[in-house]
């Protein structure tokens, strides 16, 4: 299919003909000198920006992620305030306030520029409060929040540089400092009724073997930390986070899945000696930890493979602590333990880059 070469002068016409057949004439530019667009640009007080590509951005930003996670925590917060009354609310407020003050003070001392508006301090405060018993004294809550921010985050260099989840680090500090107070649980009581001390479902199980009913666990009508009691409220928030891709779905899946499978195997071997896997899944802080703490972006691996290992590792550590360890609950330690391995996981699980594997020789 050879084509007759059109004369150069015909070229314009040819294109014209094909493109806008209804208009025969070449589009004429207005003869009057238009103002130079550049001059127009620079005359206005707004200069154009010279910046590296890309010139469009995704819709995520750090503060947006933080505030979204806070929003996802709201159902659990509301349920816990309903269950534990104003005590829970005060604990949360105190933790948030103390965390923000600590962050502000660190900003000032370290001269880093204010970072309290990025939402991470608020989130740390809320998460810390969620892991405390409702009856925990206010001053110590504040102390925990300060430790979480100062030693959990700012000494590493601020947001993004920390190795351990700040909220859990604060909680670990409190656990080590005030082991009695932090294990004094209050049973939920609706407003007006005095709460009474009682054991958590896990504590109960490991002391006298009582398995709390699944219904109570789901609704949250059990003793425990402020934020860990109602599995349903936490699941709502957690699944929301996963749907909008602010949390990596692999982490909760592999974490909770490992706990379920591992404890399920043990249960099948000996249902008398080991708790049933559903009880293991919904008791304690597993749901809270799996959806909101283990998924903390800063302290979780970035590679898909690393994420799987991280989740499975946490699940194994958790079951081992719960069943063979001296503590009834191990979510905090399992997450902190795997947090410590994250830099290594990130290094070991570097994805094979595109074309790294030698492709088979084509025929």
């Amino acid at each position, binding site marked *: 299919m050879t084509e007759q070469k059109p004369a150069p002068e015909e070229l314009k016409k040819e294109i014209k003909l094909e493109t806008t057949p209804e208009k025969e004439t070449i589009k004429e530019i207005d003869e009057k000198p238009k103002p130079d667009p550049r001059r127009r640009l620079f005359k206005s007080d707004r200069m154009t920006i010279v910046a590296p590509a890309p010139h469009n951005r995704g819709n995520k930003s750090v503060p947006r992620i933080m505030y979204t996670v806070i929003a996802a925590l709201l159902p659990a917060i509301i349920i816990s305030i309903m269950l534990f009354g104003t005590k829970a609310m005060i604990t949360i407020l105190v933790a948030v306030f103390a965390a923000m003050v600590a962050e502000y003070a660190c900003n000032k001392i370290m001269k880093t520029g204010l970072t309290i508006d990025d939402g991470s301090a608020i989130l740390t405060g809320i998460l810390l409060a969620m892991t405390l018993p409702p009856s925990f*004294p206010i001053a*110590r809550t504040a*102390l925990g929040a300060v430790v979480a921010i100062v*030693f959990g985050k700012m*000494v590493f260099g601020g947001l993004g540089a920390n190795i351990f989840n700040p909220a859990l680090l604060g909680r670990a*500090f409190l656990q*080590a*400092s*005030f*082991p009695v*107070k932090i294990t004094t649980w209050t049973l939920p009581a609706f407003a007006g009724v005095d709460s009474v001390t009682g054991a958590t479902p896990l504590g109960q199980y490991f002391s006298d073997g009582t398995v709390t009913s699944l219904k109570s666990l789901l609704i949250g009508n059990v003793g425990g930390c402020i934020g860990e009691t109602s599995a349903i409220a936490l699941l709502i928030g957690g699944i929301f986070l996963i749907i909008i891709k602010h949390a990596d779905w692999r982490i909760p899946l592999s974490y909770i899945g490992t706990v379920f499978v591992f404890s399920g195997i043990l249960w099948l071997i000996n249902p008398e000696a080991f708790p049933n896997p559903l009880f293991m899944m919904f008791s304690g802080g597993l749901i809270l930890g799996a959806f909101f703490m283990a998924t903390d972006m800063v302290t979780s691996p970035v590679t898909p493979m690393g994420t799987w290992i991280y989740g499975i590792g946490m699940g194994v550590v958790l079951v081992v602590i719960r069943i063979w360890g001296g503590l009834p609950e191990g979510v905090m330690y399992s997450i902190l333990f795997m947090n410590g391995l994250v830099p290594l996981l990130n290094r070991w699980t570097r994805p094979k880059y595109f074309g790294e594997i030698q492709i088979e020789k084509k025929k």
Partner: protein
Amino acid sequence: MKEKTAIQEFVKGIWDENPILVQLLGLCPTLAVTTAAENGLAMGMAATFVLLCSSFLVSMFRKVIPGQVRIAAYIVIIATFVTIADRFLAAFVPDISKSLGPFIPLIIVNCIILGRQEAFASKNGIGRSLLDALGMGLGFTLVLLVLSSIREILGSGTWFGMNIMWESFAEWGVMSQAPGAFITLGCLIAGANWINARRKA
């Protein structure tokens, strides 16, 4: 470098060349025994005693001890004084001796002491060596005292065994455990660096 005056020789160990805060030497006993102010003070004084005596001897015999075996000689001298200190503590203040545990014998390998012999006493006269040893010992003792005081007050609510915090004060259990030692020491070193940076500026 300009020759230091006697006062400077003494003072440098307390701040500018503080064995813990600046040289980061002798951290093992520092972290381990500072659960109570009493222990910290006793440890500091024992180390100061050993440092003083061995610096004195090493400086005195610095020209006699052959270079090849100087470390061995220092170790023997130090060990002798450490044993003296250990036995005295055990004999007269058995409670403290018990709580310091193996850390008194471990003064033998404390880098501060061997370090001062090697770096200073073996090259300087007796007077200067004594001043240096005293300064270093005092610097060590002071940091230990501060560290152990903070840990005792926060971790147990007492200071030298006296209740000094208010009635409802809750002890920070972590402070009397190993992590508390690291946190407190870290804060002290950070503070010292901060002050130095400000002084320089």
